[in-house]
């Protein structure tokens, strides 16, 4: 491990490897000791770092908002309540703007998506080596602190959204209505035979666009955060290349971090807005 970290490739590799718990080649259950070992564990393994950070940040968000919600007052709000109300108001405005139906789930859904993803993205702004080094002191060798750079996390959320899309589509339009929407559009014909011929074409087009929703949702977030983290890692490598490059890297790091504040917020906002829009589509009847 120590020899691996001396090279740039090793450093990057090390930063991109999750702390994976699963079945080791010898049949024992435990943490993988290398990226190759983690890969060999197959599907029934878990990225403990992503999962733990994701849940810790989710709990942080939930408890923070819960503590405000408990002693919330309609009178003059305090500082924390002001902040929380500002976010709620913002989410509520977004939901009202894009969602025309009436479903009490959409507001909380949008709030959770936005705040949770924002917090997970925010981990990117913490110096790339800080938390992994601290964990290394306790013998934990792999630690990816930004859950949204793990496709498992982004796909986990987008597939959850996809399920909600399917659930509400079927609930609001019925199985027939939903299947009809998939098979009878966009190509339509008066003639029954021609219409029948169009069905497979429509199914293919609509099916692709339906599947594209969760895939694009997950990959957009993952790609942006992964690329952002990669740039932080590359900048971090420059620190070891002499004081001149190191100073330049400091400027770069600052610039990228400031720019990244925009990206993490934007990505969280896009995920939230698309979730709301997809939910709206699932609630709308097409005739």
């Amino acid at each position: 491990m120590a020899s691996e970290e001396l090279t740039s490739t090793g450093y990057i590799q090390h930063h991109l490897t999750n702390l994976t718990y699963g079945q080791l080649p010898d049949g024992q259950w435990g943490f993988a000791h290398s990226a190759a070992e983690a890969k060999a564990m197959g599907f029934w393994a878990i990225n403990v770092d992503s999962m733990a950070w994701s849940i810790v940040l989710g709990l942080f968000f939930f408890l923070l908002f819960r503590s405000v919600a408990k002693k919330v007052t309609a009178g003059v709000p305090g500082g924390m309540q002001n902040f929380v109300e500002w976010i709620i108001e913002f989410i509520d405005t977004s939901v009202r703007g894009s969602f025309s139906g009436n479903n009490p789930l959409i507001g909380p859904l949008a709030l959770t998506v936005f705040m949770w993803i924002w917090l997970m993205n925010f981990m990117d702004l913490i110096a790339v080596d800080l938390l992994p080094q601290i964990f290394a002191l306790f013998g934990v060798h792999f630690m990816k602190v930004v859950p949204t750079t793990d496709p498992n996390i982004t796909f986990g959320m987008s597939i959850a959204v996809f399920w909600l899309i399917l659930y509400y589509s079927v609930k609001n339009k019925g199985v027939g209505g939903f299947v009809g929407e998939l098979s009878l559009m966009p190509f339509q014909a008066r003639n029954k035979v021609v219409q029948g011929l169009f069905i497979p074409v429509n199914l293919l087009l609509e099916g692709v666009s339906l599947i594209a929703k969760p895939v694009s949702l997950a990959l957009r977030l993952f790609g942006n955060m992964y690329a952002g983290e990669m740039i932080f890692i590359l900048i971090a490598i420059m620190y070891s290349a002499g004081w001149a490059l190191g100073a330049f890297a400091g400027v770069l790091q600052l610039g990228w971090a400031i720019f990244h504040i925009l990206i993490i917020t934007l990505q969280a906002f896009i995920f939230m807005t698309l979730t709301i829009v997809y939910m709206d589509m699932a609630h709308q009847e097409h005739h």
Partner: protein
Amino acid sequence: MNINATLIGQFIAFFVFVWFVMKYVWPPLIHVLNERKKTIADGLAAAERGKNQQVLAEQHAAEVIHEAKGRAAEILARAEKRASEIVEEAKDAARTEGDRIKAAANAEIQQEVSRAREQLRGQVVSLAVVGAGKVLKRELDAKTHDDLLQDLVAQL
């Protein structure tokens, strides 16, 4: 970057968090926001109502002041009229009183005059008697010539 069971874990965690937020976070906060919105709207409406009422009250006050001014002018005019009436009455009373006093004084003067005349008459008689006595160089008996004297007095 392997797809593994983390996906399922995140999938479950997602629903759990959304459900928690829907149950414990969102309703109280949105309720309070709506409540405050309503409070502010009510406050603004009340302010608007108050403003209207103020305008009405000002109009009412102006009316009352106008009416009071009219009444005051009326009272003033009546008072002035009454004052001139009183002055006239006083003038009349004074004139009557003056006349009465003048008449009384005239009567007294007449009385005085007649009394003085009586006295004068008496003195003239005495003087005449004295004068006549001196002329006749003898004492006249007033008693004897009383009728003569009386006659004289009547002629004065």
